[in-house]
């Protein structure tokens, strides 16, 4: 595992994989939450960001389906609750921690450089092949 991580480290410019348990921590801001309740007697889903600085509660209408995918979430600690008039049922908690911008930019710049090089090589070689003809 360590060697595999080292290989990835080299090839992707210092991207350290996230070792936190996949179901409770996400790096991409989206998560699929399984619906493990047996009843459909809810009217809302609350997505509660419990971070002190960015505390917020977002309300979604309840839809009785096998799972729900939430996306576009900023970094923070979240709690998902199913709500009806009588009670609130906590479904799960999870952590969103986005990749660092520095590491993401490094990969972006690598892509930009390689793309620029591809365009330049492609058109210079194409031009040269036409000149040769």
């Amino acid at each position: 595992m360590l060697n595999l991580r080292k290989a990835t480290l080299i090839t992707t410019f210092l991207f350290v994989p996230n070792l936190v348990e996949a179901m409770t921590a996400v790096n991409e801001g989206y998560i699929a939450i399984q619906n493990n309740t047996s009843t459909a007697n809810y009217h809302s889903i609350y997505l509660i960001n419990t971070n002190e600085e960015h505390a917020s509660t977002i309300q979604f209408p309840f839809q009785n389906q096998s799972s729900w995918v939430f996306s576009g979430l900023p970094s923070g600690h979240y709690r998902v609750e199913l709500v009806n008039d009588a009670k609130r049922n906590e479904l799960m908690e999870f952590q969103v921690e986005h990749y660092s911008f520095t590491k993401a930019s490094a990969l972006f710049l690598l892509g930009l450089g390689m793309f620029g090089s591809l365009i330049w090589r492609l058109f210079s070689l194409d031009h040269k092949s036409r000149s040769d003809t």
Partner: protein
Amino acid sequence: MTDIQISAFSATWILVLFGVAWVSWGWYLGRKNKSVDDYALAGRNVGFALATATAMATWITSNTTLVAPQLTYQFGVWGMLGYSMAALGLILFAPLAKRIKRLMPQGFTSGDFIYARYGKSAWIIFLIISFCYAVGWMVSLGMAGGLLLSSLSELSYLTGMTVILVICVGYTLLGGLRAVIATDFVQTLLIITGVVIIAVVCIKDIGFSTIHQNVSIKQPELLNLLFPAAIMFFFNNVFFGIGEIFHSNVWWSRAFAFGDGIGKKAYLTAGILWLPIPIVTGFIALAASSLGVIPPSADLIGPLVAAKILGSVGAVFVFIVVFSALASSMDSLLAATSDLLTQDVYHRLINSTASPSELLTANKSVVILLGVLTWILSTLKLATLGALLNFTGAFVASTIWPIVYGLYDRRLPGKWAALAMALGTTTGLCAYFIIGFYVAAISACFVSWIICLVGLRQNEPLFDWQSLEENHRVR
């Protein structure tokens, strides 16, 4: 289950009507096929309008109608823009198409070129890559058919997936590439009309300001231009798209099939026309929070939002549009992959003295076998569409540099091209499993590029372009 919009009865009738229409038309067009050249390459004389339409329709697929909204839902603005950059694959392939036709006017497949240019080792690795990609894409299309039907109607995933496979195998089998190109033309018109109507209704009924306000509150990262995972995804998708087109026989077979001087113009036009389509299809995913839609799976967001906007009649409309998109890609992939396996595996390895009629029979048998294989794998439903497609990115992006240098630079030796494809793919797969699907293609492409650069500095004999055509004549 999500809200059901179309009854099983209506969905079945739509499928029957579509199935009969496409398969009958395929049979009608297939009557003109007299040789394997007619069947596999439509007589090598496809004109500009059909050429542009087939290139565009093939590239409008489950990727565009289901995965573009999925990636917008996951990665926001970057996801939408990144997806539209897949047009660069078509645009950059334009000069390659001209070069391919000039170097190998009687060529059949991309495998033909790799064998003649780089030799057997590189050819075997290339075939494995092509096959993994083609199967991955076909499975994603089969899955998309199943997901589409199960999310918009009372029919099951298995029924939807089976029906789309049977219809596409049916008319590809009967009509060959000629039927594929003709149906693509009509499917393009249906898809573009449908996509534009859905987007216009979305903007008219909900409005930009409401969408913006709701996304800002409920999904703020989708509007964040410094969203790290989305930034990582952007160029990954660019290289994935370029790799898909540069290596795949879907696009090479069209380069051979188009008339002289048509390929470059057709690919360039198709790329420019295709560019805004993922932005339109992706955009509707941003309306999800305004409509209170939370998908059970990210790849369902497009059809669910569209059905919610347009109501039950709209669900039928969405169904027809996405079904057309799926069919236009599935048929092309079946035709091109069967050509590749017939010419490169059956003809080269199993029966090198096969007559034209034996080749035609083999080609049709391969179409059926591919359909069965796709059906079996699609029943397993291994991943979301986006994740499955990007898995194949690790394979295809490793071929970009070997293809470019192979077509234009005589210095790159075959063993280095083989090494570039093998190690590039391995690296991409490691990145896929350890980091995420959004870094597979870029990692593969980078490693492949470095190996090609080393290979170019080896003092080995220069390749003789004449041998490309001679190699094909010998066969």
